[in-house]
C-alpha cells in the first residue's frame, strides 16, 4: 500500500551473480556446449564472455542503471566443418535463456533465400526471411555470396541494404550471424564496410587438431550407437592426418563422411557372412578393416593424389 512497499522490490540492495546465473538457466546450456563440442576453445571463451556481459546487463537493469542493449550481430569465420552452424544453433538458445532474444529460434538461410531472380523480387523475399527471423537468430551461411563483385547489377546488393537497415533498426529484435570461410568473408567485409561496423563480434573457428577429430568421430558414432574397436580407433587415428593432407578436407564433416562410409563397409562385411549368428556387440562395433578399406589408405600407399578427391 505505502510508497515504500512499491519501490522496495524494484531496486534490491545487493544481487548475487551466482543466483542470477542459476535463475537464467544458461549454465546447463554452456555446460552442454563444453561437453558436446570438442576443441573450439576461443569460440567457447567468446560465448562465455557474451553470456557474462548479458548477465551483468540484466543485473544492472535490476538496479535501474540504464545501459543500451549491446549489439550482438556476429560473424563466424572458419574452414568448412569447424562447427559454425552447430554453434549458431547453441547461440540462439543461449541468447534466449539470457533474455536477449524473445523466441530463441534459428533461421538458417543462404543467398538463395534472400536474393530474388528478377527486379523487385529481392526486397519482399529478404523481408519475408527477416520477418520469420524476428525474435530469434538469423544465420546466413556463406554470406559472402550475397555480394558479387563481378556483377554490379547483382540483386545481392539490395538484400545487403535491407539487411543492414534491419540490423541497425531492429537490434533488439533479432541477431544476425554471418558465417563463411575466413578469406572470402574478409573480402566481403572489405567491400561492405557497413557490415563490418555493424557486426560486433568476429569469432574465428580454428581447425580441429587430429586428437579433437578423433574424439569428435567417437562422439558421432556413440550418438548413432556404434563404437570403435581398439584396432579401428588406431586406424581412424592414422586416417585423420592422411585425410587432412588431401584436398577438400572439411574437418568434422570429412570425419562424418568417413564414418558413414565405414558404417557402409561394416554393414557389407556383416552381410557377406550372413549365416553367422550376430551379437549386439558385432553389429555395433566398427572394426579396423572397415576403416582401413578407405581409399585414403590406398592412395597413401601408392603415394599419388587421388583422381577424384571428392570421394576419398
Amino acid at each position, binding site marked *: 500500500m505505502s510508497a515504500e512497499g512499491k519501490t522496495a522490490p524494484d531496486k534490491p540492495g545487493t544481487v548475487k551473480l551466482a543466483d542470477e546465473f542459476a535463475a537464467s538457466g544458461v549454465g546447463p546450456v554452456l555446460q552442454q556446449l563444453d561437453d558436446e563440442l570438442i576443441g573450439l576453445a576461443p569460440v567457447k571463451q567468446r560465448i562465455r564472455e557474451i553470456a557474462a556481459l548479458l548477465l551483468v546487463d540484466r543485473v544492472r537493469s535490476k538496479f535501474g542503471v540504464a545501459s543500451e542493449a549491446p549489439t550482438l550481430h556476429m560473424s563466424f569465420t572458419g574452414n568448412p566443418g569447424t562447427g559454425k552452424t552447430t554453434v549458431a544453433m547453441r547461440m540462439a538458445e543461449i541468447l534466449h535463456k539470457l533474455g536477449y532474444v524473445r523466441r530463441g529460434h534459428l533461421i538458417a538461410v543462404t543467398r538463395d533465400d534472400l536474393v530474388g531472380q528478377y527486379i523487385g523480387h529481392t526486397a519482399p523475399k529478404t523481408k519475408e526471411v527477416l520477418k*520469420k*527471423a524476428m*525474435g530469434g537468430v538469423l544465420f546466413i551461411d556463406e554470406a559472402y555470396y550475397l555480394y558479387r563483385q563481378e556483377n554490379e547489377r547483382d540483386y545481392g546488393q539490395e538484400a545487403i541494404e535491407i539487411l543492414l537497415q534491419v540490423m541497425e533498426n*531492429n537490434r533488439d*529484435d533479432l541477431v544476425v550471424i554471418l558465417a563463411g570461410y575466413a578469406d572470402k568473408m574478409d573480402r566481403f567485409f572489405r567491400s561492405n564496410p557497413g557490415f563490418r561496423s555493424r557486426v560486433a563480434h568476429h569469432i574465428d573457428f580454428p581447425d580441429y587438431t587430429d586428437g579433437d577429430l578423433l574424439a569428435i568421430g567417437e562422439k558421432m558414432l556413440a550418438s548413432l550407437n556404434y563404437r570403435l574397436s581398439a584396432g579401428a580407433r588406431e586406424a581412424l587415428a592414422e586416417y585423420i592426418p592422411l585425410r587432412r593432407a588431401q584436398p577438400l578436407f572439411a574437418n568434422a564433416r570429412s570425419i562424418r563422411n568417413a564414418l558413414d562410409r565405414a558404417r557402409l563397409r561394416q554393414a557389407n562385411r556383416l552381410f557377406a557372412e550372413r549365416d553367422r549368428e550376430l551379437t549386439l556387440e558385432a553389429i555395433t562395433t566398427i572394426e579396423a578393416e572397415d576403416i582401413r578399406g578407405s581409399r585414403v589408405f590406398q592412395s597413401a600407399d601408392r603415394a599419388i593424389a587421388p583422381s577424384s578427391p571428392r570421394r576419398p
Partner: protein
Amino acid sequence: MRITQGCFSFLPDLTDDQILTQIQYCIDNGWAVNLEFTDDPHPRNTYWEMWGLPMFDLRDAKGVLMELDACRKVYGDRYIRLSAFDSSHGWESVRISFIVNRPKNEDGFRLDRTEAHGRVQRYATRAYAADKPEGKRYA
C-alpha cells in the same frame, strides 16, 4: 463518428505495444495473422483488401508489426484491421479481428430514408466517405 467494429473497438485505440501483445497471443495459438485495409467503412462491407499474404509461419509478433508499419506507410489514411485465422479442425474461421489504424477524420454515416409501398420506410446507412471515389475518400 468513430466506427466500432471487431474487438476492442469501444476502447481507446491500442498502442503498438498492446497490438504486439495481441499478435503474440494469436501466434502462440498458431493462428495465421492477416492485415486488411479499406476505405469503405460500412459495417456490411466484408470485403477488405489484404495487405500481403496471411502470415502463418512467423514466431514473433514483431514480424507482423513490420508489415503493419509498411501498410500504414502506404494506407495510413484508411482503416486497417488485423485478423487471425484459426485453421484447426472444427474452428476454421477468424478468431479475432480488430482495427489497428483509422483515418484522421472519420466522417460517419448518413441515414437515408426511402418511402416504399404504402407508408413503409426503408432505411439505409451510407458512409459520407463513400460518396467520393475509392482511394480519395480520406485523402
